[in-house]
């Protein structure tokens, strides 16, 4: 008998949504000792399915039909009191955002102890808490137990969350995108940890993710969700290598393959040369010690005409700061930023203005990078108008650009909130292109997007680059994306570039230990997406 069996689950959406049901006729099961991955893009209903199992659906989303059987009991007909007892003891959940899932005012040890206490085994807390922290491979459990959450890194917090979920030895662990907010190397450690604990204790794991790499890394079986329905379900090796449903095939085809092909070396004139740029943040002083963070140092690079250089690294590595130094959003203390031989660093705001036409930027968050109170047409035309072009001409050009980024020119008079994330990112790209730049700086332009949209935006960028002969500085944390689009990559760690070279060489024969670690952490490295 299965540990968890969900049959024909249908959950309604409030009226006025884009579809009548959040999930419709969803059936799956999880056995003890196996990991079932539910994959899907945002809005596919994968988290709703998980929350329904936990009895954590918001009031606006009632269950219309179906049954959820857990260890032979029907969870949907269970009284709230009985459900509460089950939660934590037999069913446990870990969430996506480790930064907000812990109470910031409570010591970590006390929070884990609380879980034990609530379920009536508080007496054991003193003994069990260090054990649990050790079980999730945290160094020095006694010290961690005494610290407050803000002292821990994201990966450490997620480990604490897992320790908390494991406190009562649940039979089923539900993990809702537990590694999405983490860096790749941390993600790999957490995935290995979940795998290890699962096999040690024989738990069933329901793992929600949007990333096929993660699926390849961890899943025994896979269920693929699209718009509230499960479209394909089966053993991981089957679904990953021989997908049947067109949607699964499209998703897998969109996964960046991560294999870097050798490209011709580009030996044109340098467009941008950074030498000795340093940016240091100082905090504190007055009382207590001054904290000094060297955000960027030892990060020299040369970008040649028509080339795409990828800056890769984990969060906090300084890659975004370095990119922002180039466009003077961040002002470095020293070094030269030579654009065609002219040092841009000492230039004033006014002296910079002519260069704004030549150097443009695409931002990471499509939801924050467009002014919500301005129409799309005005947003795109704004740059040229600022630089003295007549408005009518700029608007005419904006219309063309919308076509170039494959949006309907009818979008001109609409506001950003009417568009999806991928469409907004296209608008952001059109805005940058309106200036007819020579150098485009793309700061994680696809990291906030679903994988299929990500593939479209990457293809668009590649096409535009080829058509307009753009030089591009491409910042990303995702090595698979870097492999796909960059001619050369520079790997950053703690503010410094530790290795750079042609993409294929860096991927095939990494020299620096950190590069090797990054490459080993790409989820699903052992899986090559099939040619479809």
């Amino acid at each position: 008998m299965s540990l968890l069996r969900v049959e024909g689950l249908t959950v309604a959406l409030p009226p006025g949504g884009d579809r009548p049901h959040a999930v419709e006729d969803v059936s799956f099961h999880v056995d003890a000792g196996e990991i079932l991955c539910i994959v899907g893009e945002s809005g596919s209903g994968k988290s709703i399915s998980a929350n329904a199992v936990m009895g954590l659906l918001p009031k606006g989303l009632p269950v219309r039909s179906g049954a959820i059987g857990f260890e032979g009991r029907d969870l949907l007909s269970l009284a709230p009191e009985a459900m509460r007892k089950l939660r934590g003891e037999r069913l446990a959940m870990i969430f996506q955002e480790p930064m907000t899932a812990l109470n910031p005012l409570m010591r970590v040890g006390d929070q884990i102890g609380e879980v034990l206490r609530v379920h009536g085994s508080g007496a054991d807390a003193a003994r069990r808490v260090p054990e649990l922290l050790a079980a999730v491979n945290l160094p020095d459990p006694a010290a961690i137990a005494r610290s407050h959450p803000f002292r821990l890194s994201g990966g450490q917090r997620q480990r604490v969350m897992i320790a908390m979920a494991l406190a009562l030895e649940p039979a089923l662990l539900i993990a809702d995108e537990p590694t999405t907010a983490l860096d790749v190397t941390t993600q790999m450690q957490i995935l290995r940890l979940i795998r290890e604990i699962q096999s040690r204790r024989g738990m069933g794991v329901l793992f929600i993710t949007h990333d096929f790499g993660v699926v390849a890394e961890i899943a025994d079986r896979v269920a693929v969700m699209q718009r509230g329905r499960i479209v394909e379900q089966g053993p991981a090796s089957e679904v990953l290598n021989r997908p049947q449903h067109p949607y699964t095939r499209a998703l897998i085809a969109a996964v960046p393959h991560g294999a870097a092909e050798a490209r011709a070396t580009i030996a044109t004139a340098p467009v941008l040369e950074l030498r000795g740029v340093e940016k240091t943040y100082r905090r504190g002083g007055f009382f207590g010690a001054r904290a000094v963070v060297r955000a960027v140092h030892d990060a020299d690079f040369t970008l040649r005409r028509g080339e795409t250089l990828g800056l890769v690294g984990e969060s906090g590595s300084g890659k975004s700061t370095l990119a922002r130094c180039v466009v003077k959003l961040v002002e470095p203390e020293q070094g030269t930023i030579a654009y065609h031989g002219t040092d841009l660093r000492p230039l004033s705001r006014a002296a910079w203005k002519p260069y704004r036409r030549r150097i443009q930027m695409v931002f990471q968050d499509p939801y924050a990078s467009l002014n919500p109170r301005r129409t799309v047409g005005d947003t795109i035309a704004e740059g040229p108008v600022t630089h003295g072009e007549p408005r009518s001409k700029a608007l005419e050009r904006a219309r063309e650009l919308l076509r170039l980024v494959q949006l309907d020119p009818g979008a001109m008079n609409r506001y950003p909130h009417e568009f999806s994330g991928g469409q907004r990112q296209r608008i952001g790209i059109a805005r940058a292109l309106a200036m007819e730049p020579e150098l485009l700086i793309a700061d994680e332009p696809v990291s906030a997007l679903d994988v299929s949209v990500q593939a479209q935006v990457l293809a668009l960028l590649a096409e535009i680059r080829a058509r307009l002969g753009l030089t591009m500085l491409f910042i990303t944390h995702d090595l698979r994306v870097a492999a796909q689009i960059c001619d050369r990559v520079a790997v950053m760690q703690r503010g410094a570039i530790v290795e750079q070279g042609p993409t294929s060489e860096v991927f095939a024969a990494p020299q620096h230990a950190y590069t090797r670690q990054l490459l080993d952490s790409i989820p699903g490295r052992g899986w090559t997406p099939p040619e479809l």
Partner: protein
Amino acid sequence: MRDFWRRFRRNKGAVVGLVILLLVVLLAVTAPWLYPASPWDMAGAPFSPPGEMGMLLGTDSLGRDVAAGIAHGARISLLVGAVSTAAALLVGVTLGAVAGYLGGFADDAVMRFTEFFQTIPSFVLAILLVAIFTPSIGSVVFAIAIVSWPPVARVVRAEFLSLRGREFVQAAEVLGKSRLSIVLTDILPNALSPIVVLSSLMVASAILLESALSFLGLGDPNLMTWGFLIGSGRSVIRLAWWMSVFPGIAIFLTVLALNLVGEGLSDALNPRLARQRGGAA
């Protein structure tokens, strides 16, 4: 816009407030036709209670019509409320924008200056200013504006601080827009909602301040105001309650209406917050 109106209407109190406010405005606009004679003229026997001798709300100790006083006073109260709020907004938004957008030294300087004003009790400062500049409608408006801009500056600064770091503002910087145009076209429109809500409450407190000043005899001696009506009726309140009570009710209703409207605006402009509040109740 239609959406905004739908969300505003969901707050019943705000709709009631808006209706009251519109009635007060209507009264102020139609005062010269309703009561063509000057409100300072004698209209009947002194101390007539409400309803007698054709006086709807009675007469005061000199035989002046209380209802005429309230109607004409509404003009002054609303005018003072609106003009002083506009002046305070001008000062507060400008200083707050400078502090929030530039940050650093400018921020420190402006905020210390603002705190300097906030540490002085506002009513005392207003009295002092009116007394120095001799009571007139101009000096009353000036005094109210001077004491009410600091909260605006603080709110605007906070909004600007958070908006300044947003990516669309950075994008505007990268496009090479000037500082002034970034502040006016990118940041300010996105900071408007708290300013709108705050200003509706400021109109209310300006009306109260003006009434309090008039009550103390520091209003414009040539203008009939609600505060003056209460002040002049104060000494005979046990003989003729209507002289103070009706202008008091007028102030109460207007201020209440403005506060209700302010809350409705806040709900309509921040739909997410409003829903949370509704959900918790």
